């Protein structure tokens, strides 16, 4: 049935998509208005003063119904299936309340709670949690959650190493913490392009409009409360780049008068670091009125290692050195909480790093990359009654520098790439429950991205400049429909995106003889380009219990072209690329079915199967021209020419047989191929039909085991990454003498012990067996890394 629907949808154009969405909405609406079951209502107060608690969380176990109390502490849940019902009430700072009552159809049952203050808060280190929290089943999409405890239990030194142990996630980061261009992609999309996976930090996009890349290094690991990973383009809330899915990193929110965490570590390659996060509220409790604040930061330095592989070096390559790193970050936030639902907050962050590129000839620090990033955000989260809203404004300003120093054909080259990238925006979203079964979410999004870049040559007279701006507007509407009985849920969503590229230019000052070929590609003002994209989303799930379900999803995602492809011409690894201001967005239609099953409350199984069709994928195409860059090199241009088909399976299993033991395992299969490729000139363009996407392993698996005891807690992790094609033609690489990177597996471990409840000493072992693997630039990973770590939580 799904395949028939998929075929039909594939044949359907965009307008048909909208029609299908509207028909589904209309067809389901009458059903959703039918009233059935009983009603539970009541009031939640807090002891000892019996004050009303606003925003308390009410859960009907096994029925999946949730509600929040209003300002008077009152709640009401309708459509309750008759029979015995267990109600659980939670509110931070108070002990949970649980009651079991009997409800009959048409009957209204009063159930009040008085919660006792929770004087004892168990230290976080006692929580046993080694892998992503069980998938959230609130929506018919595949979503997984990683907690702060999972992050701190992972032996990896940066945040992405935690993501690497999830199904459906593909991490491309050969050099680990020394890497500047880590890519985390989802759902079988090419592993060397971050622009197809949206990454958010507290709902603020980290993907830059310039090239879609994300600076993962600026995320402070100890400041992360949790990470939501939404796989696939199923949510209407997210626009450009959310083709493969969304990774939303949420930072810690202050709930106590004062709390925090600080970590110092030292390890392999003389790597030393300090991370901290401190926050507080003038009045304790998640919902109490008052000011709140937080600061966080980190510092790390390392001598690094030499990523070059000796057997590929020539005698004259004596200038390769260690790829050192130095990085520092500081952030702060202040806010005011009016009540349980309304809060304003402003925050700022500064990040500065310098990472050596492993080459040193004459310059003291050799070739390096440096980011100076300023971030500022303002947010108002509010609500009244059952309505919730969120208003967010953000600004990210990145000054990027890369000093290139190298010898080529025995000639010395030195030039500086400078880029100022600004990404700012604002969004508004409102959640409005309507009738008994509908919850509407609507919102608007505005994003502005700009780049102002220069290549300043020192060993020649050239200065090459590029600039461009992109404005993106979007509006979305989503309806979550809970049919009577709360077993069946539908999500219908639509998102309208429009983007305008403007003020693009590419100019050269003082061109030297070696850059003459670029002069022909100068343009002081590229033509303005505008796109409109409509993405419909339809999904449904049937819940057997709160933890077991099946779901089906059909959704479209898209990705706007990035400024680098629109307005910059320059050298790339395979030749010379020229700007294409006429590029269009690429899109992805995703068809997915999945299921979750909880057995004996201990064993959780999850599986998803998906089939995606990528259209108008952007690929480099040989224009037939060539330029003289010392030798004749082909001229390439990004064009919308390919169609991609991805078939994938994800399987997750986790078991917690006892309080001191847990285990997880997952497996991902991806078959990502180019199904159609139409270069302008078939004689020049190479045939990529049937070729696999690069950097995507067909098989990937991981697993982990956590044992907690009073002596030493142990977390063991294993990961297998299958073979990946190196180049677009899937041909043998002349240096590596193989078409695929070999499969590899790594083992990691973290051992820790907590002293005096607040002090934890740990040892992190990454890549225990020193497995070596390489990337297409013939650079190898750092190998085994051992870090000792001391953490205090207060």
């Amino acid at each position, binding site marked *: 049935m799904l395949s028939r629907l998929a075929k039909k949808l594939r044949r359907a154009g965009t307008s048909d998509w909208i029609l299908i969405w509207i028909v589904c909405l209309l067809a389901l609406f009458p059903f959703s208005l039918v009233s059935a079951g009983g009603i539970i209502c009541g009031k939640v107060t807090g002891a000892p003063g019996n004050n009303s608690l606003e925003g308390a969380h009410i859960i009907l176990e096994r029925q999946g119904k949730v509600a929040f109390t209003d300002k008077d502490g009152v709640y009401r849940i309708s459509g309750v299936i008759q029979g015995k019902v267990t109600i659980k009430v939670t509110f931070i700072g108070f002990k949970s309340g649980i009651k079991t009552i009997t409800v009959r159809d048409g009957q209204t049952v009063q159930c009040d709670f008085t919660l006792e203050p929770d004087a004892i808060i168990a230290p976080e280190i006692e929580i046993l949690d080694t892998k992503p929290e069980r998938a959230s089943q609130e929506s018919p999409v595949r979503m997984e959650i990683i907690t702060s405890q999972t992050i701190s239990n992972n032996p990896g030194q940066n945040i992405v190493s935690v993501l690497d142990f999830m199904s459906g996630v593909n991490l491309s980061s050969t050099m680990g913490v020394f890497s500047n261009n880590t890519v985390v992609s989802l759902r079988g999309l090419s592993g060397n392009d971050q622009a197809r996976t949206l990454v958010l930090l507290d709902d603020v996009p980290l993907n830059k409009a310039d090239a879609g890349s994300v600076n993962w290094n600026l995320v402070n690991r100890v400041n992360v409360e949790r990470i939501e990973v939404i796989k696939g383009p199923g949510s209407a809330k997210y626009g450009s780049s959310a083709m493969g899915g969304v990774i939303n990193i949420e930072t810690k929110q202050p709930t106590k008068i004062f709390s925090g965490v600080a970590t110092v570590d030292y390890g392999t390659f003389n790597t030393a670091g300090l991370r901290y996060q401190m926050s507080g509220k003038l009045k304790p409790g998640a919902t109490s009125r008052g000011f709140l604040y937080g600061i966080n930061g980190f510092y790390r330095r390392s001598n690094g290692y030499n990523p070059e592989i000796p057997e590929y070096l*020539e*005698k*004259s390559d004596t200038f390769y050195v260690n790829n050192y790193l130095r990085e520092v970050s500081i952030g702060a936030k202040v806010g005011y909480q009016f009540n349980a639902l309304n809060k304003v907050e402003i925050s700022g962050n500064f990040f500065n790093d310098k990472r050596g590129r492993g080459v040193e*000839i*004459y*310059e003291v620090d050799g070739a390096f990359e440096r980011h100076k990033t300023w971030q500022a955000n303002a947010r108002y989260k509010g609500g009244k009654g059952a309505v919730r809203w969120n208003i967010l404004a953000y600004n990210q300003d990145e000054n990027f520098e890369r000093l290139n120093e190298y010898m080529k*054909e*025995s*000639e*010395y*080259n*030195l030039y500086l790439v400078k880029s100022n990238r600004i990404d700012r925006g604002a969004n508004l979203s409102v959640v409005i429950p309507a009738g008994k079964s509908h919850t509407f979410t609507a919102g608007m999004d505005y994003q502005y991205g700009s780049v102002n870049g220069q290549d*300043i*040559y*020192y*060993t*020649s*007279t050239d200065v090459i400049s590029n600039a461009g701006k992109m404005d993106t507007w979007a509006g979305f509407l989503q309806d979550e429909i809970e049919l009577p009985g709360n077993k069946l849920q539908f999500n219908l969503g639509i998102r309208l995106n429009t983007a305008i590229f403007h003020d693009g230019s590419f100019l050269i000052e003082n061109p*030297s*003889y*070696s850059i003459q*070929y670029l002069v022909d590609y100068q343009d002081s003002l590229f033509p303005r380009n505008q796109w409109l994209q409509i993405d419909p989303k339809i999904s449904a799930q049937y819940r057997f219990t709160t933890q077991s379900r099946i779901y089906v999803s059909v959704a479209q995602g898209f990705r706007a072209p990035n400024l680098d492809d629109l307005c910059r011409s320059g050298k790339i690894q395979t030749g010379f690329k020229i700007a294409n201001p006429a590029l269009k967005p690429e899109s992805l239609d995703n068809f997915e079915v999945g299921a979750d099953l909880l057995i004996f409350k201990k064993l959780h199984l999850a599986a998803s199967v998906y089939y995606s069709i990528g259209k108008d994928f952007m690929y480099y195409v040989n224009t037939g021209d*060539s*330029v*003289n860059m*010392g*030798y*004749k090199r082909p001229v390439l241009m990004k064009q919308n020419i390919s169609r991609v088909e991805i078939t994938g399976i994800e399987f997750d299993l986790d078991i917690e047989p006892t309080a001191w033991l847990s285990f997880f395992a997952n497996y991902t299969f991806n078959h990502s191929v180019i199904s159609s490729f139409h270069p302008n000139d078939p004689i020049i363009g190479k045939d990529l039909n049937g070729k696999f996407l690069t950097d995507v392993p067909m098989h990937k698996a991981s697993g982990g085991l956590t044992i907690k005891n009073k002596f030493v807690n142990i977390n063991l992790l294993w990961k297998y990454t299958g073979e990946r094609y190196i180049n677009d033609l899937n*041909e043998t690489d*002349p*240096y590596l003498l193989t078409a695929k990177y070999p499969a590899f597996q790594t083992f990691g471990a973290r051992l820790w012990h907590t002293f005096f409840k607040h002090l934890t000493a740990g040892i992190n072992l990454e890549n225990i067996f020193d497995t070596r693997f390489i990337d297409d630039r013939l650079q190898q990973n750092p190998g085994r890394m051992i870090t000792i770590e001391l953490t205090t939580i207060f």
Partner: protein
Amino acid sequence: MKNSTFYLIICCAVWLLAAISCKKETNPAPPTITLLSGAEYTVAGAVVAVGGKLRFGISASGQDANITNFVVKKIMPDGSTRVVLDSGLNSPAFTVNETFYQSFETEARWTFQVMDKNRQFATTAITVYKDPASTWGGILDYPLLAMGFQNNTAVGQFLIPSGGKVYFADTAAINQSRVDIITYYYDDAGTPSPTFSSAGELGGAITEYYPSINQWTTKNYTKWDVSVDSDPVPISAFEACHNDSLLIVSYDDVWGKRKFKWANAGDVIPFMTSSGKKGLIRVISVENDPAGKITFAMKIQQ
């Protein structure tokens, strides 16, 4: 009174802090450049025959930053410019002797420019004239030569252009001062690359194929003009050439590199030997194999 004293102290502190933290913007000093004088150097106003040697001594020094670029260009009477040397470096100062050869232009303003890392420039120049009595020089014409690649045991790999003789490594060592062209073959990232080079190839990769060159005391360095990829010399012009005019005009020293790779049949390749002799090679056939050979026609200044 107390309040005003307090505010005064605060204001002074803020001002002091601002004064200390603000760095004065100063204009960086440009580098300096001078032409050396002496009997061995070409002087301003010199009259030189076409093909005649021009020798310049240049001394440059950075003031606030290292010198990173050195350019020599000729500015013609019509205002057009021809760059003859464009080199990267990273040094506080340098002194260098450079040799060029007089071309066809009746008059050229030889301009020597250095740039430092602050992108500050310094320039000096002299004018040199062509001897009006200049005539075109004669050439040596070899309609068919064959050279083997490193594993070829039948055809040698070392060429003496002045005699058109090809030798194997052992014999070549005896004539090393006259060997200007050496051939080898390698796979360049998947592309077959028959290569012309010389014993003085910078970086020394040639010694991977011919280790005995390490023992040579004279390693002639021939430069190969790689700009023919985008600005090819027509084969018909090569065939019709009977004096050195085409040889001189075809070779552009700024594109002169240490080797010419990817030599294919039909390519016409300009080169200049270490003694300043300019020549052209027209590739006739290539066997893409380390044991293969390359055949070509060659014309070189006498």
